[in-house]
């Protein structure tokens, strides 16, 4: 398992906007550079990108919740 961790403190989002589907779902293929979520920090949205390839397992941090730098956001198989 590979952890995807938050580079920054902020609010984590699974979706590009409230009406869209999540960036990734369980079983999706992940390639390096894929966006798996957004961190809102000080009113700026930063894309969280995968640094390794694999298969998406699931989000660990819930959608639209506060996270700290280093928190695990999602797991990959």
């Amino acid at each position, binding site marked *: 398992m590979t952890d995807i961790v938050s580079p920054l403190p902020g609010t984590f989002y699974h979706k590009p906007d409230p009406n869209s589907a999540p960036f990734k779902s369980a079983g999706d293929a992940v390639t390096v550079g894929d966006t798996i979520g957004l961190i809102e*920090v*000080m009113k700026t949205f930063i894309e969280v990108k995968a640094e390794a390839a694999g298969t998406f397992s699931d989000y660990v941090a819930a959608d639209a919740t506060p996270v700290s730098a280093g928190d695990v956001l999602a797991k990959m198989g």
Partner: protein
Amino acid sequence: MAIETLFIANRGEIAVRIIRAAQSLGIKTVQAYSEADAEMLAVKLADEAVCVGPAPAAKSYLNIPAVVAAAKDAGADAVHPGYGFLAENADFARAVEDAGMIFVGPKAETIERMGDKVAARIAAKEADVPTVPGSDGRISADEALRVADEIGYPVMIKAAAGGGGRGIRIAQDAAELSRLAPQARAEAEAAFGDGGLYLEKVIVNPRHIEVQILGDGTGAAVHCYERECSLQRRRQKVWEEAPAFGLPDATREAMCNAAVALAEAVNYRGAGTIEYLYDAAADEFYFIEMNTRIQVEHPVTEMITGLDLVAMMLLIAGGETLPVTQDQITCTGHAIEVRLNAEDPLMQFLPFPGKVASLSIPEGNGLRFDHFLYEGYQIPPFYDSLLGKMIVHAPTREAAIDLMAETLKDLEIGGLKTTTPLHLALAADPGVRAGDFHTQWLEPWLDAGNLTATDAA
């Protein structure tokens, strides 16, 4: 009725600023805070503090019923909204007054009127304040083409209910206008639920100059001179000065008098700002909007006039007539404010909240640092990135720039990235020194690589 207990419906440096002004007047303070802000400086300084909700601003600082109920329960007789959040929200002002408290600011009707750009422009015209050539209010696409022909291209299509640069398009000719107007209408409809559009002539390379006013709500108003706010990035001001430099005396007087005329015409109550675009080449100024609140850059005005604008807001809200007359308001020397944000200017201004590891603030004549920092404080990531404002005052503009550079070199905020390197580079720039800039100057200056790690070191 003088205010006895003041509820502060804001956070950060402005909350600290309001508490200090209230304390100077012997007013008891109650500070609102979100769950993420329990440790903020204003909570420690206020007589009491009340949690108004979870970290997201929409559930705390922007939650009108929660904020009004908290103020009422705390026994406050007045609410200061600061800037941002609910400061220019007419529904909030009305809810505060309906709950039997004083809103420290203008009447809800004034906020509504000046918040609608079309209504504000009509009010300015009625008070004989020059406005940017454009349409008389909301227009259809056909009317837009006719008006654009009259005033000349390029023209700007703006959302009547807009703000923050959203819903704005620039058209260089009729074909472009025909194509862009429907887009602007759709964007305005989506963003603000109001697709109303209006049209303005584009002023090329304008400066942004604004006049601070105070009104008592019964038709009397004074001005506190003007501020130069032309150094902007993404329409956000980064460096502000008072007074504006190189302005002909007659122009300054006309700008200030026009601001007073508008404030008087709308029976303005409290502190407010009339914003103008200034075309230096033509020596013409045009009203763009009125801000019905205290602004981030109010300290430069306080430095040149010696007035405490927040204390004056509280006195006026408490029912006093204007605490100063126009002939008592003087302009001495030159003041500069820079905004220190928790951002890394060398990494595309990436937000960089962190824990304040150390803090060393220069002190001396003509120096003021408005902030909410203390050693060990963890900056929350949920709100905007403003950490504080360094303000200097000196006899001349040149001396003020020198003093700003010296002061910033002595300021130490450990554990965070801040925009200090940007301000040091600006203070050293010949164009800034010469006052040779406008609102479209800073972004190309950054794009051209004028700020590098080598300079900042």
